[in-house]
């Protein structure tokens, strides 16, 4: 059976994600998730690098619960996570359009749902 091709996604410039967790809590507020689950969850990643160096990175990951805020986007609003992002590093849109905006490194294009 053919799976439906996803049309919309989230583009995240994770060079600038500061790990503020606002997106995670915005989603919980928007959809009334109980603590412990939600449509987007932030990961903290400490990378070991050679010569005793390290790098701190954060990455928001849409989960099985992400509905791409269909109720908001149908009214022309941004998804709750995108609107509140403190670093303004998230975008919502058509996947083919967002793909064209990957003009630098450290960006990821999520297709959370079909």
């Amino acid at each position, binding site marked *: 059976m053919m799976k439906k091709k996803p049309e919309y996604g989230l583009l995240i410039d994770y*060079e*600038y994600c*500061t*790990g*503020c*967790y*606002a997106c*995670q*809590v*915005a989603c*919980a*507020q*928007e959809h009334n998730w*109980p*603590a*412990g689950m939600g449509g987007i969850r*932030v990961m903290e990643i*400490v990378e*070991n690098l050679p010569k005793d160096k*390290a*790098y*701190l*990175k*954060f990455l928001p990951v849409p989960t099985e619960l992400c509905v791409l805020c269909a109720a908001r986007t149908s009214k022309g609003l941004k998804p*709750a996570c995108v*609107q*509140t*992002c*403190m*670093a*303004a590093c998230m975008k919502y849109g058509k996947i083919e359009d967002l793909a064209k905006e990957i003009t630098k490194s450290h960006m990821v294009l999520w297709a959370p749902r079909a």
Partner: protein
Amino acid sequence: MSEDVKTVKTTTWSAGPGCHGGCGVIAHIKDGKLIKIEGDPEHPMNRGRLCSRCLAVKQFIYHPDRLRKPLKRVGERGENKWKEIGWDEAFDLIEKKFGDIRDHYGAESVVFSMGTGRDVGAWICMLAYAFGSPNVSFALSGNACYTPRIVASEIVLGDYCIFDGGQWLPKGHDDPRYRVPECIVIWGYNIPASCPDNIFGHWAVDLMKKGAKLITIDPRLTWFASRSDKWLQLRPGTDGALAMGFLNIIIQEGLYDRAFVEKWTNASHLIREDTGKLLRESDVIEGGSKDNFLVWDTGRNGPVIWDVSRVEYRQPDVKPALEGQFTVTLKDGSKIKATTVWEVFRRETAQYPVDKVAKITWLKEDDIIEAARLYARSKPATIQWGLAIDSTPAITPTASAIAALWCITGNLDVPGGNVIARYAYNAVAYALPGAKGVIKLASKDIDEKRIGYQKFGPFRKFIWRSQTDSVMEQIFSGEPYPVKGMWLQCCNLIGGTGYETRKWIEALKKLDFVVVVDLFMTPTAQMADVVLPATSFLEKDSLRSWWVPLQSINKVITVDDCKSDIEINFELAKRFNPNLPWKNIYELFDDILKPSGMTYRELQEKGWSIPPEGNPSAPYLRYEKGLLRQDGKPGFNTNSGKVELYSTLREEWHLEPLPHYEEPPFTPVSRPDLFEKYPLILSTGRRSPVYFLSEHRNIPWLREIDPDPVVEIHPDTALELGIGNGEWVWVENWLGRCKLKAKVAPIVPRWMVMAAHGWWFPEKPGAEPSLYGLWESNINQLMPMGVYGKDGLGTPTKHLLCRVYKADGSSGEVDQKDR
């Protein structure tokens, strides 16, 4: 959006997010309840963005444990036995008990204690002053939060300075008048969502996207540190040495703005080589003023007077010498050698060659040099300094060195530099050091009784608070007068701000009457005789005046019987002073707002207001335009009218007048004996993205993100100690110990651990001995009271010593030579 949902705009402050506020929000209300909150896209601070704590505010406001009625203690303090009473009964009781203390001992015997920067800062002064007490206290040792940096900046240049993120311009950093800094120095400061002191932390991220380079000075691998051109992972407490080292490099390599130094600082003022002090007109002329200074005019080849009352030289066309040795005749005919402030300033900075600085700070020489050059060559460049600067006893000489950096590099009050921060329109509510508003004591005599006033210069000149360690001492000593009562509002002294926790509990138990105003029961509230339920920011009309913009806080909802801090304080203030100048809180708001030309209602309609260019509270280059001084003359609000590289105030207070470095107490260098037993540097106070200090542990959406009190340990250190990630460990020093959860990661250096602070467990029993599990994990048990600088400021929050061992009792050894 359905028709029965209305949206209302207001400004964040506290209670709620817990921060220092300022963001614009839109609250969605249905049937009188908040159903959702979001950022206001039109607001200049945050432009539609909103942090985790504010987004979770629904869980805060409607939390089942929220206090909803005044409580009176029944049983002993700490038994957690309470009776609900009405507001009138509560007010009557407080009026009687505090009134009794005032009658028997004097109003000054009641101390009014607050925590971090909230709107209560204005209203607690209103209450204390109406009562007649000058003792408004900020409950942290050495008043070591924000106040010391403000004071140091005011000592050096007469005003406070902050990083210019474009906040004074209507279009922010998109405004044509703004310039993106080529370099931002992040000095002891971290986001995420840590927005203290009227800074929106993520402006720094906006500017990074526009090309600003970073220098991060921080022993921890923060988000900024990873993305910096230079990351200086210095030993905590050595920031003063680094700043002096930077000054030395910048001066030696000629990377300073000599024209600015000559014209706008007191670099050319003469210093007597015999006394080491400033040469004054009264030294050379009979009847001359001791307030006037001398410079050597190279044109006339002789000394001329700098007249501070006119902010100019007595003679025209003076060419002041910056360097040199001169012979000056005193009024008695004798001759002395004199040199310039610039010479003695250079002698001081020359004591910090890069090899010495590297040894002190544990940094590499190349890194120090490259960072100094990057900062000094970037035009403009800005320094964003954080709480870590305050967190050392020698804070004033340290911060003075940093302030000298932005002054001599030409970054003072320029776009994208360090701008002078004043209250918008000079409308002062919460009076930070140096500021004065309409809320004041009845007379100066009363202020002279303030605890710390007699002993410490900055507390007479700039700071309107008691000196915290002296308050504790006085509670025990009763000298020069007893302390008999305390009012704690927005203040979790036990577990939040108070070091040596057991001693503070003992202190509170000595008092006749204790009132706590809060939204939740805390360990502090357990020590109270009366607890009053306050409101969140959405439930009150109030005013936010902190730098810029000037904003109203607009009541949007009501919760039960809770009253706002200002309503509570106003009612009591009226009772204690029937001649209070205002009939209601709106008259008070209007009075505060007079300099803005707006009434409170007008401000509410606007939401916020940014003062226009030309107003003294708006930048840039105000020292050139005569917008800083009362007399309207160009120059600064200092004794000399200049930026004081050599401080006249500190000379007056018999303290070192030049910036310098002092090795702090309790370090591996100052206490090698303690370091043998406690071989790790203990730092505390790092920010969590979801908590503000000791708040929010009971908010589910936030607690799940940062669930446990954590101590960060380097993997190599953990390995030597036999500690695995997620294991509970004891962190211990000579004062006490607490149990924290090991977070093993290379975000701290091998020689340091970072312990999370402000921990207590609202879900655990409140009565003593538990006090919400306070004793289990609260780091304040390891922090000493009474270790402050010579001027009463500072405390060693960031650089104590400890040992760490597994909670099962086995201990390991750290190989010290590997640091």
